[in-house]
């Protein structure tokens, strides 16, 4: 057993022993026992992380406050992507900065090695990213967005990429725009991932620095500039994209977009788009669904903004909030997509609970998420079942946008602790204020991506710190909960694919959703925490184009590959096509 592993296990045990005591001393209630789901009682436990960056081999670091000027651009953050850059099925990591991109190969056991000749060579002020297999060749490709910059990199395998921007139809200079978060989804059902990228502000010739108080020069606010708007690029195949923003009905977004998340808002199986806009109402663009019929040649669905009607345009008090990061998840295993949007300080992180009929109810305060998030400026946010109890928890990266926040506003701080909310299973959360040795620690958090970096069945997280190295959070929680994970392959675009697992009365739906959060791309594996459920009667995967695959009698505590070309049937073995005996 390696020293690192022994140390990790020791800290885990220590954390497990101390966590209740520390929680008690900290004056916060620990999580309550979860509601049993069906016949499967869930084992609740504390979520414990370990920051393994120092020993991980990841030397990437940021120092935004040293930038001159240190304006609204410099403090807005940089990308983090989890990507399969080679063939080992362990997520590799891409970090972007103000002038570079670095790829770190995952060697396993939380050891990473920088890839010097990755091909990710273009220098620009990078902001966001999105990952998908653009050409269905089985290798993940990378899109980077930035300030007056955009780049499409073709994944070659073996930790190598080749830039194909020039011939892609995506302007390498982004048309002079400031692009932020991005996300892939198949919007026209041609099984190819299309791309939406958000736009933030038009700085013009200004440096983004303002003087809120005499003598204090720090980042301007979003309302000091005209709004930039985003673009939808349709994947025409062979790394060619067309800008279809206008025919898709997306040219009248509110702009000032920081967060982008594709999800199925109304449960019709088609991808809808939520945009978290800074100081502007949020936008929810609904796909026309079955009314859209793919015609011969290029065709574009026309989206309609239904944010107001659905109840997700504004915060709990009815006013536009500063939308930052966004993610779709499932609060109470209803099978419907709920939405979380991080916001500025003194605004509650918004949790919109999905109701039948495509309506959302603001559950920010009722869920217990609103109050504890008000002191902080939230950016990256992810739903993830961090304790494998069957319910999705929420992780939030916090940090102030002003590097002189302390001088501008009494009580504010530039660095802020990240927050972890454990899902109690009754549609409420308990904030877990201690989640490891010296964790959560303060950082100037921005991007946040999640995925199982060491293949141990527990979701880990990576968070960017504008003033230092990233936080590499290894999930060392100890519990007896089961899990299962599916990795989708085949010619169909996996993003938006829904998998339902069922046994007895336990039923949960999860979606392939690597986008969302803030300037990030997470691992696309579809992960289920199962609590005490030790065998699944059946699973069903439904791709965005309606293709279904059902497999009976699936064992747990493993990761499986599901190929969209397989027939439905009985489980045969890991990564093997099922025996076609099941009436699919």
């Amino acid at each position: 057993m390696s020293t690192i592993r022994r140390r990790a296990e020791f800290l885990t045990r220590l954390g497990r022993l101390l966590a209740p005591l520390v929680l008690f001393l900290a004056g916060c209630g620990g999580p309550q026992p979860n509601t049993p789901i069906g016949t499967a009682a869930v084992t609740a436990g504390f979520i414990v992380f370990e920051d393994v960056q120092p020993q991980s081999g990841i030397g990437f670091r940021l120092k935004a406050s040293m930038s001159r000027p240190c304006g609204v651009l410099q403090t807005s953050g940089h990308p983090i992507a989890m990507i399969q850059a080679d063939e080992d099925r362990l997520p590799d990591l891409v970090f972007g900065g103000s002038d570079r991109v670095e790829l770190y190969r995952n060697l396993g056991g939380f050891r990473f090695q920088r890839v010097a000749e990755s091909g990710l060579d273009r220098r620009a002020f990078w902001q966001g990213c999105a990952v998908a297999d653009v050409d269905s060749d089985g290798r993940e490709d990378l899109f980077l967005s930035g300030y007056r910059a955009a780049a499409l990199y073709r994944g070659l395998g073996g930790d190598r990429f080749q830039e194909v921007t020039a011939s892609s139809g995506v302007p390498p200079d982004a048309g002079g725009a400031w692009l932020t978060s991005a996300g892939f989804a198949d919007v026209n059902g041609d099984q190819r991932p299309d791309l939406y990228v958000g736009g933030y502000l038009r700085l013009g010739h200004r440096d983004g620095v303002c003087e809120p108080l005499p003598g204090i020069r720090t980042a301007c606010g979003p309302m000091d500039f005209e709004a930039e708007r985003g673009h939808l690029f349709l994947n025409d195949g062979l790394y060619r994209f067309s800008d279809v923003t206008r025919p898709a009905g997306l040219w009248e977004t509110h702009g000032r977009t920081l967060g982008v998340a594709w999800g199925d808002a109304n449960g019709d199986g088609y991808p809808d788009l939520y945009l978290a806009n800074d100081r502007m109402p949020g936008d929810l663009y609904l796909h026309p669904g079955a009314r859209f019929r793919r015609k011969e040649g290029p065709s574009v669905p026309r989206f309609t903004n239904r944010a107001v009607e659905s109840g997700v345009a504004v915060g709990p008090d009815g006013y536009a909030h500063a939308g930052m990061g966004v993610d779709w998840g499932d609060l109470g295993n209803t099978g419907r997509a709920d939405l979380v949007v991080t916001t500025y300080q003194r605004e509650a992180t918004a949790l919109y609970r999905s109701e039948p009929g495509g309506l959302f109810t603001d559950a920010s305060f009722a869920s217990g998420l609103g109050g504890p998030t008000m002191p902080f400026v939230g950016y990256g946010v992810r739903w993830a079942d961090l304790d494998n109890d069957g319910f999705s928890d929420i992780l939030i990266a916090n940090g102030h946008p002003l590097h002189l926040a302390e001088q501008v506003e009494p009580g504010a701080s530039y660095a802020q602790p990240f927050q972890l909310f454990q899902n109690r299973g009754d549609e409420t959360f308990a904030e877990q204020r201690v989640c490891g040795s010296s964790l959560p620690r303060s950082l100037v958090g921005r991007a946040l991506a999640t995925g199982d970096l060491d293949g141990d069945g527990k979701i880990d997280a990576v968070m960017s710190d504008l003033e230092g190295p990233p936080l590499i959070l290894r999930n060392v929680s100890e519990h007896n909960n089961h899990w299962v994970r599916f990795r989708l392959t085949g010619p169909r675009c996996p993003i938006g694919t829904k998998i339902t697992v069922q046994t007895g009365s336990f039923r949960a739906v999860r979606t392939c959703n690597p986008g969302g959060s803030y300037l990030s791309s997470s691992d696309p594996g579809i992960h289920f925490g199962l609590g005490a459920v030790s065998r699944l009667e059946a699973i069903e995967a439904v791709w965005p184009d309606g293709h279904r695959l059902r497999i009976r009698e699936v064992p747990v505590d493993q990761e499986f590959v599901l190929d969209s070309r397989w027939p439905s049937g009985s489980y045969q073995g890991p990564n093997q096509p099922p025996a076609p005996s099941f009436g699919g």
Partner: protein
Amino acid sequence: MGTRLAPVVRRGALGALVLLGSLCAIRLFPASRLALLEQTPSSWLSLDAALPPHDGRPEFILGMRQARHGHPSAGLQQVQVALRKSPRSAEYLLGVAEIRMNLGDPDGALEAARSAVAATPGDAMAHRVMGEMLLDLDQPDPALREFEAAVRMGPNDAMNQLALGRRLLVERGRVADARVALERAVSLAPSLVEARRELGLALLKYGEFERAETHLRSAVGADGTDAHALAALGAVLRRRVRSAVARSEAHELLERATRADLSDATALHELGMLHLDEGRCSEARTALERAVVADPTSQGAWLHLSQACARLGLPGPAERARARFRILAESQAALSTALSRIDRNPSSVSLHLEVARIYLRRSDYQQAEHHLGAAVELEPGNPVAKAAWSEYRRSHPNGGAR
């Protein structure tokens, strides 16, 4: 030592006289915002009897009594007699200001208040009263400057901190400064209930629900009919706790708030949201309809009304409420931007006209009138401003009153 102390003592006594005189004047002011000044710590007032009367004081007291008992003209004559005897008395000048306000002569009132400030330029109290008067005259920016001057001159006076904090609380983006002033006010005068209430409101905006609840409970304990405090405490409980008992208490507090002030839009909106949270859509609709009548510019109330109607299966009313919300929400960003630009360039006629147009679109006639008036005042000969003002007066002959 004695000779060095004498001027200090003299100055101190003089200062106390001015201060107490002003306090007396303030105590005579009618209800409205100035009523808060009546909560001045009693230890200051107890000195009153020990002080020699001002020259003209009997006339002043008689005049103020007459004014407050329905004879403002007669009262004004008496106070002016007093003023002739002590022409630089800030106290008497503020008395004149009050009576002129009641007589519907805001210009005369303002002039008297300005004279009071000029007569005692270092008197924080005069600045504060001036600020309150400017607020009554719907001049929030100059009022804020007067409150800031009052705090500069009397930082250890809880009333000055309270007046500033309360003003900042409703200013855009100044809640942090408001909180500082209100924390100071409460620490200077822990028994000042109004300061606790305002601090509770500030803490509610910060999400510090536990501390907000403490301060608001003491405010409600002191005055169980204070609709603002009741509504704020109800709002805190609605956000803070999820137990049925706490929600029931929140419900009761909000009901009490709406009874104490039938047109408290915040309380009605909170009550509507509480009903909506708990699936009582019909009750939610009733409360929210009252909320939008009380404040037709409340975006949140319109939004939640549309949601309540949608859930009740009333698509028509839901769509109408949504349309109203949409106008308010869509114009909010433009309004914020335009107001920020006015902050930087307050003498721009075109900006005032732009803001007035946005307010008109939002049916906020009071604010629209304020900015149209500002545009005309800045450039009386500006044809665009004049035309806009005339058009406004033609379509709104009763002015900005709702």
